[in-house]
């Protein structure tokens, strides 16, 4: 079975994403652990928790083969630092999933990044999870910003 961590972040629920994964879990032979936020319903094929502590989240990041998540910056950066491929699905303002449509912009800006896959519905999610699972190796992203950014900020602080 392929181990999948689903996470929707700490602010708002994202039941649509959980349901999408729930629907294809058995087809793709997925062992799913989902952090659901304040979810409003039960899901049949997957293990759910509302919230994870930072260390629990880190444990789950190490455990999984692939991350499937809302297109939240914290989640994307954490997955890349852990060296795990991630499938991101944008929250939509129109469905009340977010306060704005920033995640749509995030998806388009990050779609070229190595290790990042995108999806918006069931067929694209199926395809992206399959692609992510067959990704051989994802380079771990550095834990810190690029050196040029760091030294610029350092100059602004020290100067």
């Amino acid at each position, binding site marked *: 079975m392929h181990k999948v961590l689903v996470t929707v*972040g*700490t*602010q708002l629920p994202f039941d649509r994403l959980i349901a999408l994964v729930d629907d294809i879990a058995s087809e793709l032979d997925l062992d799913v652990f989902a952090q659901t936020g304040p979810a409003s319903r039960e899901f049949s094929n997957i293990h759910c928790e509302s919230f994870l*502590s*930072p*260390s629990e989240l880190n444990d789950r990041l190490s455990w999984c083969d692939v991350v499937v998540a809302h297109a*939240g*910056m*914290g*989640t994307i*950066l*954490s997955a*890349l630092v852990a060296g795990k491929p991630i499938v991101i699905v944008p929250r939509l303002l129109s469905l009340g999933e977010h*306060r704005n449509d*920033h*995640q749509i*912009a*995030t998806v388009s*800006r*990050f779609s*070229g*990044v190595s290790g990042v896959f995108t999806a918006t519905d069931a067929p694209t999610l199926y395809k992206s999870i399959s692609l992510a699972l067959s990704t051989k190796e994802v380079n771990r*992203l550095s*834990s*810190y*910003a*690029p050196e*040029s*950014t*760091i*030294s*610029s*900020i*350092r100059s*602004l*602080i*020290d100067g």
Partner: protein
Amino acid sequence: MLASRGYATGFVIVPNIINSVSMQRRKSILAVASGGGHWVQLLRLRPAFRHHSVTYVTTSHGALPRDEEGSIFVVPDANFSSKVRLIYLGLRIAALVLWVRPDVVVSTGAAPGFFAILFGRLLGAKTIWFDSIANADEMSLAGKHVRRFSTHWLSQWESVAQKSGAKYVGAVIEL
């Protein structure tokens, strides 16, 4: 002739010791970010804080890596849609800024950072707003509100910097 020769030998190159690291005064930095994406981005800037004393401020979902030396305060989360929570958050941040008296305030957002920059600036600190990389089309709402209190008002996107008048000095990740 003699006078001009003496004048010429009077030029000596003084080593620029003022900028060497060992002479750098250890500053007090207040580093503020909401839990989640803002916090993850702030932590990626930590090497820039080296040699200074850092106090971190975040909302309940953030956490400091075990190897980090700075102290951390947790404040309640709030956004611009709830005035009451916002006022309470403002008071908490004001108290923290008065307590810490930072030389520098750095924030990646959102509301806690807005208040920290505002009060920090009023107390004479240097303030750096580093808008979240999630704001790829325009500056965030909090960022727009905090502009005139920011010594350095930064976007992580060159296109956004160009449009808004913010500065671009880099991002937390190379895209």
